[in-house]
């Protein structure tokens, strides 16, 4: 079974990258001490591993997996290889809602829910705009994404400058806006994990219906998919996944674009296989990107969004050039 071996390989890749993410860091801690720390030694190493590296690695995995899965769903639904939560402005909408929640002083666990709501509103808007464009949605989606991202960015700047509450934690908020998984706490992780689990579960259930969109919404309907219900459910799952990712890490670009696209050439376009593969590969990729972000210019740290941007943006351009034939 080719599919199973690819999935097994991705699981192994995720485990290896997670191990590397836990082992490598500013403070050198040997493998033996790491194991001891994981199982509860109470020295400094234990604190570093349990309170810093482990949540960070798990957070990066959740963020990467969620973004890649959301990207796979969006690309399938919009029939657009250039769609992902970042490019469509969905992440920006989630960011805006999350920042607004912080400004309003909502309790921390409500921030991911606000991010989800922001993502849902934005992704629904993108879907509506894409449908206005008729058959060729590729450019419309990109343009809608540009507009929504700029708008959300403008409002976030306004909130940042005008709010006393945010000014106090400006540095943290700015780091988050650039996309970072450096300060993730266990309670945040818990809330996000539940949201991601629901989003991923829905994605797996919906996957074969997303296949039916390959020839457009109307053909999906004649193949037996209720287009309104399915579209709503897929947009909802996308919003859950992108909302959770944004709540944990802010704006991390291009993971959702690159991972599903690259995987299609290995595992095929069928979403029943693409969705789980995207989650695993996205998780592994972002754990590695995060590892890079804290070791490349150590002891300083890059935001992980800078790493994904460095790799993702050229990839996006290449894809844009290649798909011009189809876009125009």
């Amino acid at each position, binding site marked *: 079974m080719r599919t199973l071996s690819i999935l097994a390989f991705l699981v192994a890749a995720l485990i290896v990258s997670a191990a590397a993410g836990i082992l490598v860091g500013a403070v050198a801690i040997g493998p033996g001490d790491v194991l001891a720390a994981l199982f509860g030694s109470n020295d400094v190493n234990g604190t570093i591993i349990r309170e810093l590296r482990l949540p960070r690695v798990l957070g990066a995995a959740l963020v990467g997996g969620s973004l890649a899965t959301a990207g796979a769903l969006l690309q399938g639904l919009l029939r657009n290889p250039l769609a992902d939560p970042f490019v469509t402005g969905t992440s920006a909408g989630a960011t805006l809602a999350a920042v607004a929640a912080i400004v309003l002083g909502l309790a921390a666990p409500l921030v991911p829910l606000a991010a989800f709501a922001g993502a849902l509103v934005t992704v629904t808007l993108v879907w509506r705009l894409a449908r206005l464009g008729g058959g060729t949605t590729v450019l419309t989606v990109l343009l809608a994404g540009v507009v929504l991202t700029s708008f959300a960015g403008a409002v976030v700047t306004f909130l940042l400058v005008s709010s006393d509450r945010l000014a106090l934690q400006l540095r943290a908020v700015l780091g988050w806006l650039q996309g970072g998984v450096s300060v993730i706490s266990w309670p945040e992780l818990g809330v996000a994990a539940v949201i991601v689990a629901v989003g991923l579960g829905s994605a*797996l259930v919906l996957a*074969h219906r997303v*296949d039916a969109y*390959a020839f457009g919404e109307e053909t999906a309907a*004649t193949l*037996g*998919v209720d287009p309104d219900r399915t579209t709503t459910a897929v947009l909802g799952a996308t919003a859950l996944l992108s909302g959770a990712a944004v709540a944990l890490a802010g704006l991390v670009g291009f993971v959702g674009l690159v991972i599903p696209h690259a995987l299609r050439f290995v595992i095929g376009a069928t979403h029943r296989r693409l969705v789980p593969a995207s989650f695993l590969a996205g998780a592994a990729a972002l754990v590695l990107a995060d590892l890079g972000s804290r070791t490349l210019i150590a002891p300083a740290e890059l935001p992980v969004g800078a790493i994904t941007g460095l790799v993702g943006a050229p990839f996006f351009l290449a894809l844009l050039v290649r798909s011009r034939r189809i876009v125009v």
Partner: protein
Amino acid sequence: MTTLATTSVTASYGPRVVLRDCSFSLGSGEIVAVVGPNGAGKSTLLRVLAGLLRPAAGAVALDGHDVATMSRSALARRIAVVPQIFDTLFPFTVREVVTLGRTARLGAFGRASANDLAAVDRAIDELELGPLASRRIDRLSGGERQRAVLAMALAQESDVLLLDEPTVHLDPGHQLATLGLLRDLAARRQLAVCAVLHDLNLASTFASRIVAIADGRIVRDGTPLEVIHSDLVRAVFGEGLEVVARDGHPAVLPSVPQTVPKRP
């Protein structure tokens, strides 16, 4: 025996009325060609038959059941629509595309049962797609792609097959092959087939019945001989076409111009 029928259907897109008072029925084993000028409402009639467009007045019934009350999934088991395909963006294989025809019947998480796999194999065999089954659909020729999409519709194992200009991107040889295949399939599977066709000659050769639409109304419904004659062709498509009989089949040709242009 299946019957798909419209009674006094009026359909519109917003304020624009596209079909007026259309009554029409389609039965098992029949191939009905819908012909008419651009914008006459042919594709709209097909969309109404498929339950994709709710009529503003009148009703569509499948064996007496109102299509509007049936779920998409129930409809997909009875009515298959062959879409017009220009480009697919994703590397689906031919077998995966054909399997899409089983969407309404797949189990949880898209699991295919033995029945599903058998239906897919059968459709692939019938359209002689075996050697292409694991090829990517975006790498096939237009004719091969058309066959793959037809196989997808066959895999639905429906009673009714609706096609919107199935020959539009094909060269004359492939047009004949596709319609010949359709005729065999309609006979073998006792399908009720309705196809929008632009080419009157193909319609008159392959259809058991022709429905001519002009300006949203059905102006004639009958055998090719009854429908394709000079008066109707002129009335519906305008001047400049003439109908000649050929072995009992009407054929439509451009009239020979009074003055044949000479080479300069």
